[in-house]
């Protein structure tokens, strides 16, 4: 059986588990909506359209980052219940296939949240992109993958620690800073039209390639750790 089939097997299982429980999606959606609504009430976006455009990219990605973190620990908790992770450690399937499958599942969950959140965000913050809006189609998937690939890896790394809910943000936030900066800058560039987002998209792409490669190569070690 080839590698892609192993990845698909893991992905299908994670999607099925989420469909049955809806633990990750519900938690993320509720959290992200709450952040967007509370911030919209905290200041009046309609009265300050220019300032709103300047900060909306940051608000959107920070909301998504924190929302994603609520789901990442959850996705590995399924594997530790009933010690299923031990079955994976003895399985013939490559460990990295488990990682890629789970990261893809998390990517789909966060993307689903973005699809629901985007129109609400646009309405609440009265947003009309002044730059090339189509470039958001590059920024959003790249940014989402950057969040989930590291998040999935570090959630697995913190699995065996006692305070894993606390440890994940402490590790993930600093390491996601370059990606977060690139996502926010690229999104702000599209929304304001004041500068070109291309450089930031390239930075994001480089970040994604480097960290995806590192996570895939190191995951076997993380999975095998006592």
């Amino acid at each position, binding site marked *: 059986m080839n590698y892609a*089939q192993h990845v698909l097997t893991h992905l299908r*299982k994670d999607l099925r588990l989420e469909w049955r429980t809806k633990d990750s999606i519900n938690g993320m959606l509720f959290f992200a909506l709450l952040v967007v609504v509370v911030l919209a009430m905290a200041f009046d976006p309609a009265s300050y359209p220019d300032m709103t455009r300047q900060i909306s990219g940051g608000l959107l990605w920070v909301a998504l980052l924190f929302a994603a973190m609520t789901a990442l620990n959850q996705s590995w908790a399924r594997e530790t219940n*009933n010690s299923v992770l*031990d*079955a*994976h450690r003895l*399985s*013939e399937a490559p460990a990295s296939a488990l990682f890629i499958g789970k990261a893809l599942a998390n990517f789909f969950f966060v993307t689903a949240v973005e699809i629901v959140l985007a129109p609400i965000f646009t309405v609440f913050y009265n947003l009309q992109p002044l730059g090339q809006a189509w470039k958001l189609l590059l920024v959003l998937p790249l940014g989402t993958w950057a969040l989930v690939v590291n998040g999935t890896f570090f959630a697995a790394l913190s699995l065996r620690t006692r305070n894993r809910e606390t440890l994940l943000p402490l590790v993930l936030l600093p390491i996601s800073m370059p990606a977060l900066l690139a996502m926010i800058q690229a999104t702000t560039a599209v929304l304001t039209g004041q500068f070109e987002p291309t450089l930031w998209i390239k930075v994001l792409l480089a970040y994604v390639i480097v960290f995806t490669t590192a996570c895939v190569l190191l995951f076997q070690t993380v999975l095998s750790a006592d």
Partner: protein
Amino acid sequence: MTIGRDPTVAPTIELEGAAVAKPGALPPPRKSSAAEASAAVKLQRVSRLYGSFVALREVSLQLAPGSSVVILGENGAGKSTLLKVVAGLHAPTYGEVTIFGESPRDLRGSVAYMSHATMLYDELTGMENLTYFAGLQNSSPQPMRSNHSSGSRKARLRDRAAQALREVGLDPANPRRVGEYSQGMRQRASLARVLLSEPDLLLLDEPFSNLDLGSAHSMIARLLAHLAQPSPRGLARTLLLTTHQAELARPLAQSTLTMNAGRLVSLRQTPPPQADGDTPAQREGVR
């Protein structure tokens, strides 16, 4: 036919370096290979510490392929730790472990481990769980000991999972999720998962706990049938099983190891079963 493995083909078992327990001739090799020539399990002065607690103390043990060994001991004696170290789930703090001449961590797929936990997803049905685990095997999914090899890969995985469930007495069409199973059903589903991978080395940690007598005898019969056949890699299957129910596990035991405080303290050859059978399982027989 009497239940229990043929005592005349008991393989060599070495404890603390001394060859003991060899009542009969070794079985003729089924297939000559490097793996067959190696010990199935070899532990050399293995210790395992959890913090300052010593769970295993300088354990040395060598099992030939085809061995079937039951490990007895009180709670905390180190039985589960020993199985986890052999499985490669826990690295030894000191000493060396090899399985068929290789490190356990390099031998994924050849070793199957059944623990107290089911290692199954509670939110999936038994069939969904087993189809998933069948899909993680590298080998081409053929139904176990069946001639039906046609059909799509998905259909073959489902056939294989359904067959594994039927062999432990579970209904593949049962729509209940594993989390809704009774304890006995969960144990049987867990056994089906373990046997699905057609392992060379089977490690079972308290497989009969929480099972009624009938279910335990069914499980023993299924295990005996499994052990009687060579693995797909042509090796005689090896079993290491821990239990508190020595009498119940007797049909599976060529030899019985006893552990205490992290040490292997004794090894005795299990007496051959009487012709008329002296345990309920032996009386039941294997068909």
